[in-house]
């Protein structure tokens, strides 16, 4: 990190970069609410109220993660039996039917990714809030990973929607979506919003520059 220590940062040079179009502008102290001259988006040194917005969305996601896993996301009924599937039992069914590779994909996308995302975002928010200098490069990489994998948790939602549409043979066999699907979809959307609200530049801010954000 020593090689990067001397690199100038926009905030220290009195520059603002537009997150929408990438234009770099001079920060004029006279203007209270500056806008980008090219795309008219509001300019901020850091995303406004980044930490508190991100925390609020993250806590909501963590709370909904519980019903998302306890309530059934899918009900299968055939002539012989009727069954409520939660996310985990769906993975187990796939595993037992021999499709271990798909079971693994669904397990990772639906259970591991949301959980890791919540834990990783909490770590980022705590360490950025404390202006920690601990492993900044790794934390920056962790944030980019969270942004990248966020949408893959929607996998199970799409699977359920397709199964509901296809397995519709009235009395013989029918699949319906359960309330867990709503909770799970909310978790995915909320964690995506939480990671978008977080400003990764906070990872690199020292206490005196960060307090002005």
């Amino acid at each position, binding site marked *: 990190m020593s090689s*990067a220590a001397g690199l100038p940062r926009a905030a220290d040079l009195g*520059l603002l970069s537009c997150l929408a179009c990438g234009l770099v502008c001079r920060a004029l102290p006279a203007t209270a609410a500056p806008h980008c001259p090219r795309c008219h988006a509001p300019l901020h040194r850091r995303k406004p109220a980044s930490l508190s917005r991100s925390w609020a969305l993250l806590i909501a996601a963590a709370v909904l993660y519980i019903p998302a896993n306890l309530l059934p996301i899918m009900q299968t009924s055939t002539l012989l039996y009727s069954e409520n599937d939660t996310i985990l039992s769906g993975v187990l069914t796939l595993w037992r039917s021999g499709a271990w590779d*798909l079971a693994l994909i669904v397990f990772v996308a639906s259970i591991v990714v949301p959980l890791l995302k919540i834990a990783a975002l909490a770590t980022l928010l705590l360490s950025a809030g404390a202006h920690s200098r601990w492993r900044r490069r790794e934390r920056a990489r962790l944030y980019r990973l969270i942004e990248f994998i966020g*949408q*893959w948790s929607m996998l199970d939602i*799409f699977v359920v929607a397709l199964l509901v549409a296809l397995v519709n*043979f009235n009395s013989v066999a029918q699949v319906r979506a359960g*309330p867990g699907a709503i909770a799970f*979809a909310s978790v995915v959307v909320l964690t995506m919003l939480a990671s978008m609200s977080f400003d990764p530049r906070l990872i690199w801010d020292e206490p005196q520059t960060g307090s002005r954000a």
Partner: protein
Amino acid sequence: MPTLIVCEHCDTVYQRAPLQPGQRARCLRCAAPLYRADLAPPALLALTLAAAVVFLIANVFPIVSLDLQGSSSQSTLWGAIHAAWDSEVGPVAVLVALTAFFFPLLQILLLGAVLLALRRGGLRRSLLVDALHSLRFLRPWSMVEVFLLGALVAVVKMGALAAVQPRPGLYGFAALTLLLTALNSFDLHRLWECLDE
């Protein structure tokens, strides 16, 4: 100051340097990608038109069909959205409709309109600005590739229950995934710069 570039991930300021095709610039402080030598707008326009055609194919034809004791059913993406709506999980149906249908469609239409307008002029600048802002907003919420994987998982899941066959829509979505991935790796900041020229 168009010669400067600031890393979105850590606020480090750099002087822009020209890149060879295939090269990409990374931030020295946080290693995030800064910018890269991208496709030229005409190539992008060709990809966008291809994506529009493939989007049509993917959504007109059924994705999979299912045979169970003589009766059969098949579904398109829109059929899945409809079924989820009827299954009393309205919010889920809306989310699927937005992320797998409307957002990708809007992305293709807006990108096509912006590229055509940049080529020929004629569209008001304020409309272009709105379109580019919308494209930035849409990017993370457009999930065709996730839907494709979901369709594959659904095929295998039902394979245990009934005879499942992939239909042309599935191949359409596979092609759409490739095209949209290429389009989404394009740096939208480049189009903002074209707007200034």
